[in-house]
């Protein structure tokens, strides 16, 4: 049995947020009210899209527009993408998007009264190398207000989108910054019960990731679901 057929492991209890998270108001009318139906991982869930840099050209430096530098504190963000067993997730596509240094998204629906920066588009795409490493150059995003509750502000964050080996490993997350006082007030960050799990969304400040006279650095490692040792077919009695 090919290893690719081994199913992905269940998420550790409490480490993922509940869609029914009332403190985050937008969940109210959008979360399913009936229990999710557990289905077996078939070829559809065990495999997933593979993106090639040829079809999906990478942009790793989003702090510059041609020769124009974006306004803000330039940072380098790098890390590894591994599975739960520490195996590198190689050649996988990593997408990021974020607000500019003033806390404004280059997006028609963002009405926050903060300036747009013509030199900051706000999104990028890279691929991990054979060791699962990725690296972006960007600017530190600003905090922005939102309408969730009175005087609500999102902590500084960078959105991440990852695919991994299968449809079942899809991950959308946000990277936060150490020492941000808004974290403990943020219903999105707090929607995950396990404090250790949510704290792993906070990047580590690391001068060595940065570059002298150029940028500060942050390290942000991410982990995707690992595979069970037992191949899928053996989990289903109907096979025998």
């Amino acid at each position, binding site marked *: 049995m090919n290893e690719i057929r081994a199913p992905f492991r269940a998420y550790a209890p409490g480490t993922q947020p509940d869609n029914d998270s009332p403190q985050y108001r937008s*969940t109210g009318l*959008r979360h399913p009210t009936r229990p999710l139906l557990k289905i*077996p991982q078939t070829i559809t869930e065990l495999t997933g899209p593979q993106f090639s840099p040829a079809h999906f050209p990478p942009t790793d430096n989003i702090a510059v527009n041609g020769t124009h530098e974006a306004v803000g504190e330039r940072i380098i963000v790098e890390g590894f993408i591994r599975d739960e067993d520490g195996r590198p997730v190689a050649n996988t596509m990593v997408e990021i998007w974020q607000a500019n240094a003033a806390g404004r998204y280059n997006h028609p629906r*963002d009405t926050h009264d903060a300036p747009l920066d013509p030199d900051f588009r706000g999104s990028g795409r890279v691929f991990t190398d054979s060791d699962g490493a990725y690296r972006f150059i960007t600017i530190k995003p600003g905090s922005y207000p939102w309408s969730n509750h009175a005087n609500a502000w999102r902590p500084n964050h960078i959105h991440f989108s990852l695919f991994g080996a299968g449809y079942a490993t899809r*991950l959308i997350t946000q990277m936060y910054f150490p020492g941000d006082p808004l974290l403990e007030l943020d219903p999105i960050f707090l929607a995950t019960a396990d404090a250790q799990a949510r704290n792993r969304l906070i990047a580590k400040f690391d001068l060595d990731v940065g570059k002298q006279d150029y940028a500060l650095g942050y390290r942000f490692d991410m982990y995707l679901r690992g595979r069970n040792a037992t191949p899928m077919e053996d989990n289903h009695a109907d096979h025998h």
Partner: protein
Amino acid sequence: MQTTTSQTIGPYWHLIEDRSWSDLTRFGATGEVITIEGTISDGAGAPAADACVEIWQTSPTACDEFPGFGRAATNEAGVFSFKTIMPGPVRGPGNTLQAPHLAVTILARGLMFHLATRLYFDKEPANENDPVLSLIEDKARRNTLMARQTKAGVWHLDIHLQGDAETVFFEI
């Protein structure tokens, strides 16, 4: 190390949107070209106008000409649309055969964790023995996954995040 915690895709994910991705035939795939269209609505029946819909299909097999994967945004009316190749059946657990289907992922503001469901094709005889559809005990709810043909080559599915017509969502 445990799997990294999911966070909402938020309302501004369009910064990574590339509209060409909703056309899975753009790299030259050939076959029975179909349009998949649908709507997403919330528990009050209002359109989810800022959602990201992703599809993944293992038939036909992904290759240079066919990515198997697509992404589309819902518009102000909660409508999304894809152009792809009609899938065939694929093998299921044990000796079963899965009816033609697409995996569908919904990501949106207000969803802390993406929702997984499937799109099947109404009146397809193989639906009767599909190993995933069969897990839905309330047969009426199987219809929440059935795209209906509205005209030649066009299939339509309404996805309800919440409420009486709530779509069946999966834990995978």
